[in-house]
């Protein structure tokens, strides 16, 4: 009865469509996440950010939203692992000379690598602000400031965000192609928009660790 769903999920085309869909949803999350985080720059000793953080944690829908978000990440990563494994198996003996026809980019070729880098950052990020939730909620702004003043943490964050930017620069345009959307009027615009979005998101997120690491944030 559900064999058609199984066929879709196990097919290369279906898998890529799901990767694209989960990826686009995760981009939606990133935009919302950055919008919230920018309240760190309010210059009010963290009042705006603390209000935002407490507002989020008191949302009754939060556990469901967190679960949905976790499923999006796990789904996207599981599909990526399967696709990458199969793609490696599809060429076990490589070329002696590797050249290009001018289309593949560093970003397109390093999607798995940048994805893994983002995942490492994500684990650290969840450890810092989610798994130590009680400590975080006492004073979210202070907690962010303490974490990001640590050079090692700031470096992991910067590396993760740069990888995210590279990942997104290929991801956005690629997702529409995987979902079957290609139109001579819109596709060139979407590709440019995807790159601009990647730069904007990466710049926005990068501003945070740089700001706190370089000691501009808050009280000192």
């Amino acid at each position: 009865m559900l064999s058609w769903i199984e066929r879709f999920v196990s097919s290369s085309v279906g898998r890529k469509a799901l990767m694209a869909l989960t990826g686009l949803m995760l981009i939606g999350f990133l935009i919302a996440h950055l919008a919230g985080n920018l309240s760190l720059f309010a210059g009010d000793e963290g009042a705006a950010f603390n209000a935002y953080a407490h507002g989020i944690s008191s949302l009754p829908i939060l556990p469901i939203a967190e679960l949905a978000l976790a499923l999006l990440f796990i789904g996207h990563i599981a599909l990526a692992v399967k696709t990458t494994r199969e793609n490696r198996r599809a060429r076990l003996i490589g070329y002696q000379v590797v050249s290009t026809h001018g289309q593949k980019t560093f970003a397109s070729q390093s999607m798995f690598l940048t994805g893994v880098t983002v995942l490492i950052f994500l684990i650290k990020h969840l450890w810092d602000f989610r798994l130590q939730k009680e400590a975080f909620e006492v004073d979210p702004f202070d907690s962010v400031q303490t974490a990001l003043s640590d050079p090692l943490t700031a470096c992991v964050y910067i590396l993760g965000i740069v990888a995210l930017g590279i990942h997104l620069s290929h991801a956005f345009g690629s997702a529409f192609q995987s979902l079957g959307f290609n139109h001579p009027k819109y596709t060139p615009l979407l590709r440019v928009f995807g790159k601009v979005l990647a730069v904007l998101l990466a710049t926005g997120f990068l501003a945070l660790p740089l700001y706190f690491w370089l000691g501009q944030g808050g009280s000192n």
Partner: protein
Amino acid sequence: MKLNLKIWRQKNGQTKGAMENYELGGVSSDMSFLEMLDILNEQLISEGTDPVAFDHDCREGVCGTCGSVVNGQVHGPDAETTLCQLHMRRFQDGDTVQIEPWRSTAFPVLKDLIVDRSAFDRIHQAGGYVSVSTGAAQDANAIPIPKNDAELAFDYAECIGCGGCVAACPNGAAMLFTAAKVAHLAKLPQGQPERERRVLAMVGAMDKEGFGACTNHFECSAACPKGVPIDAIATMNREYLRATFLSKEGV
């Protein structure tokens, strides 16, 4: 001109191959790439050694039989050119030219530069056709087809099945080949009755052969000797989603 050739030599599918060096003099810039290999083979035969096996048939760029990776590029450095239409004027005296077969698990090497591309036949046989016998060609205007659709269908139909897309794809995916057939027939009225069944069957056959999945590098279309446009793949993705979610096909 004189060339330093490095060519993949492999006795058969069971043995391991290796790159071997050959020096070839007396190459004219007017020769085609395959003629250059012919000269090399004459030299090898006169020396009593095994000539380099390579696929070729029409040598006019239309049959899709020839093809090797030259210095890392599928069908060599010229855009929209099959290997047989590549000419030695693209090379200079003293150049090192590395020649390798298509690399894909689904295209096992049979000998030297020849690979087994019957995986493409099986994908094609899964649905790359119109079942209904259409009889003699009817009046050209009996079925009106918008000009844009006709032109797109023709762009897709130009695929000659050489396998260069698979060879150029960093993932060894056969998406452009399969998509060219799917998109070509999806654009035309004759293809409509089997539209959904076709895309499900062809993608299924493609996956079974062990090709990779598309991650949108777009190398395939750039390497394609017929310039099959990359939007064919988006069309196939769309057709696959449509067949999966909006049709009663493949329940």
